[in-house]
């Protein structure tokens, strides 16, 4: 157990060093893009003069040398302050905190759904390999994987919202309804259905294909034959012996994808007008809202690092042969 704690601590120290490097790199990356927030705001206003742009640059601190801006920024980050969005006149943390729940509820629901359905379908396909069920699952997975995600979203919304009128076409909640408690949860859940299905379909497809391929490989290994020879039941062989060994590649891929969950749903959030962080990031890029963009980068980096550590721990739990070492 001591080894585990030691490992965890050393991973955290490494992670912190990586984070600082990421912050510095991101800082230069966003400032390398042409134009700045003052220019964007002048462009939006449809009229400008020197004073307008100069005032904004002074207010945003953009008139300071770049290294000084970096110093100020890193100094704040170390103190846990993500900075201030001058465009929106609010602290970056407040903006992120407002958008983060919407994204997390969308992506986590989709992720869990995709993982469960993907592994189940993949297993089913592998068990029934060569039959119509296998072919159907393979075709559906291929289609879902290859079709542009925003197109699926639009078609679902066209069918279920416009034609049938069953579900809301977009948005996070019913505006002005003022629901509280359970009614609010139900309201958000109804709005959640279409975006979650759209997003989950894509991930589900990749998990299903991965599970199927991996299971087929493991199925022909000697220990499975031994298990059969022992007279174990088919379901026990599949779940305990085959699936448990076949699931490792799925965990690897899921671990990587989970890290991207926070930033990875820009298209879905745009199509369904979902007030999440992916859209915020996209808009921040266009508006050169440096501090917001850097804040989002930081949060997503932390998520990626955390999920990587989590994946490593999971490996050890699923397959005790994998030794956690430094």
């Amino acid at each position: 157990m001591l080894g585990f704690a030691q490992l965890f601590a050393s991973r955290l120290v490494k992670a912190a060093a990586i984070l600082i490097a990421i912050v510095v790199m991101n800082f230069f990356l966003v400032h390398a893009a042409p134009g700045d927030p003052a220019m964007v705001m002048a462009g939006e206003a449809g009229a400008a003069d020197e004073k307008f742009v100069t005032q904004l640059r002074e207010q945003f601190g953009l008139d300071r040398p770049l290294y000084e801006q970096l110093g100020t920024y890193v100094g704040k980050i170390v103190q846990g302050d993500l900075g201030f969005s001058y465009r929106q006149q609010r602290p970056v943390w407040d903006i992120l905190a407002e958008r983060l729940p919407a994204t997390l509820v969308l992506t986590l629901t989709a992720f869990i759904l995709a993982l469960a359905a993907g592994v189940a379908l993949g297993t089913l396909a592998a068990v029934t390999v060569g039959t119509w069920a296998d072919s159907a699952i393979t075709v559906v997975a291929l289609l879902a994987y290859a079709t542009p995600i925003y197109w699926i979203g639009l078609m679902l919304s066209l069918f279920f919202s416009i034609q049938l009128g069953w579900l809301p076409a977009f948005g996070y909640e019913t505006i002005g309804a003022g629901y509280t408690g359970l009614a609010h949860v139900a309201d958000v859940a109804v709005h959640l259905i279409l975006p979650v299905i759209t997003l989950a379909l894509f991930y589900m497809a990749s998990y299903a294909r991965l599970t199927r391929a991996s299971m087929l490989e493991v199925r022909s290994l000697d220990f499975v034959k031994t298990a059969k020879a022992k007279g174990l039941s088919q379901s026990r062989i599949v779940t305990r012996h085959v699936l448990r060994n076949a699931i490792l590649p799925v965990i690897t891929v899921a671990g990587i994808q989970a890290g991207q969950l926070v930033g990875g749903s820009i298209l879905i959030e745009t199509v369904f007008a979902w007030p999440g962080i992916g859209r915020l990031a996209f808009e921040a890029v266009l508006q050169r809202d440096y501090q917001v963009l850097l804040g989002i980068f930081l949060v997503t980096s932390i998520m990626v690092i955390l999920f990587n550590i989590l994946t490593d721990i999971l490996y050890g739990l699923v397959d005790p042969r994998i030794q956690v070492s430094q």
Partner: protein
Amino acid sequence: MTRRLTGIPASFQRGFRRSVHRAAAAGLLAAALAIPGTAALVAAPAIAQETPVRGGVLNSIVQPEPPTLMLGLNQQGPTQTVGGKIYQGLLTYDQKLNPMPSLAKSWTISPDGLTYTFKLFENVKWHDGKPFTANDVVFTTSKFLMEVHPRARAVFSRCESITALDDHTVEFKLKEPFPAFIQAFEVSSAPIVPAHIYEGTDYRANPANNTPIGTGPFKLKEWVKGSYIQLVRNEDYFKEGLPYLDGITFRVIPDAASRSLALESGQVQQTQYSDLEPFEVPRMKTLPNLTMTTAGYEFVAPMAWLEINHRVKPLDDKRFRKAIAYAIDRKFIRDKIWFGLGRVPTGPINSVVKFYDPKVTTYEPNPEKAKALLDEMGLKPNGQGVRATVKLMPMPYGETWTRLGEYMKQALGKVGIAVVLESTDAAGWAQRVANWDYEITTNFLYQYGDPALGVARTYISSNIRKGVLFTNTMGYSNPKVDELFAKASQEIDPAKRQEQYSEVQRILSDELPVVWLLEMEFPTFLDKRVKNANTTAIGVNDTYESVWLAK
């Protein structure tokens, strides 16, 4: 000559008058058809329909989501549409651009054109309950806007003094005559802000910017960032019985296809400006529950053009620019790229703006003439048929502008001008255009009701300013043009002013500092139940005090 224009108080009478008019028209029609009984049948529902009723919430779209609703600090399009319900200017304008009362009930202009006196409505209150007085107008125009609003700064810096004669009278004294002054009081050009909140503070950092306090018929109730902006009825609005609506909700819908769906499914009852892509417009026009109008954009009157950097050869030669003008088919651009929205321009001034003159050099599509001009310049085709290569950076403002760029490449290619398309995003575009780092780009500018406010800025040489957008970025310079624009901006005799503007239009249409492509029109879609919307030159940006929803 003193022009005294008395305000029509209670503009809700408009709705009533129109209803009488329509009922009468329906009656006449029935009478003409001489079908007994029809008159009553037709007229009765018309009257029932056209009597304004209280209540209901109008849903619309706000796109893109503005950074703030404090209209004095930000004049982005969406800020104007939402902020125009919260804040008010002294004036608004009818669709012929004549001034109409808003916070000012009447006004006079002295015969020498130097003194403008505004009488304000009394009993107007700010949303926090404090009274609105002439002091607010003086503070706004002499201090607040001078500090933060580039367009207003250019106008109000012409004032020698701005004084409150009493609590409800304001007097502007100009240094020199500037007849366009009366066009500069619309809500986005000069939104009146509360002195008691802003005076003596850091305007941009004032916490009240998040909870805008205006005088308008609607107040901000809630703004959930990324989702919606909810406005509610101002119960203390100074016009008795107005507004009719209980509220207006603006939804943030970032995807163009989803915006079309929202309108189609009735979740929103109004779209404006560029909410819908032009290619969606013909289809939406056919939907039975919607009406479409392009009226209500007369104040902005956008003009789109090819902006050409005269510092790059051979773009400095007017024959080359004329060749471009002959090589393209602007009717095709209007019909196939903008799907019929807009008008083919003749010269620098949009035909709905004052002092427009159609008698100028025009350019019908004529590729042969274009080739002849290029031959004359000595630009002969090489082995691949290419006479010259130019770089075109389309404006990154959506699909339509990209298509325009592709059309340009094709059309100019046919006369031997090879086009290399460059792509960028909004920030990069602004940076490069402002710093003259381009060869040709597409651009569109608003004309703000008067050539002195929105047209001259593009062509006068004193406005060649590096690093600033929407200036004379081409580097075009003609002393005669400078002189005519300067004179006309101060000429108080409208006839003489017209002569000067006509001459400048003739010179510019011959020299083609830019190649005008389209007098842009925006579609406003309204659900048929929405009444009385879009009655002024600022259309969807107006207060909506007399807009109502039929049940």
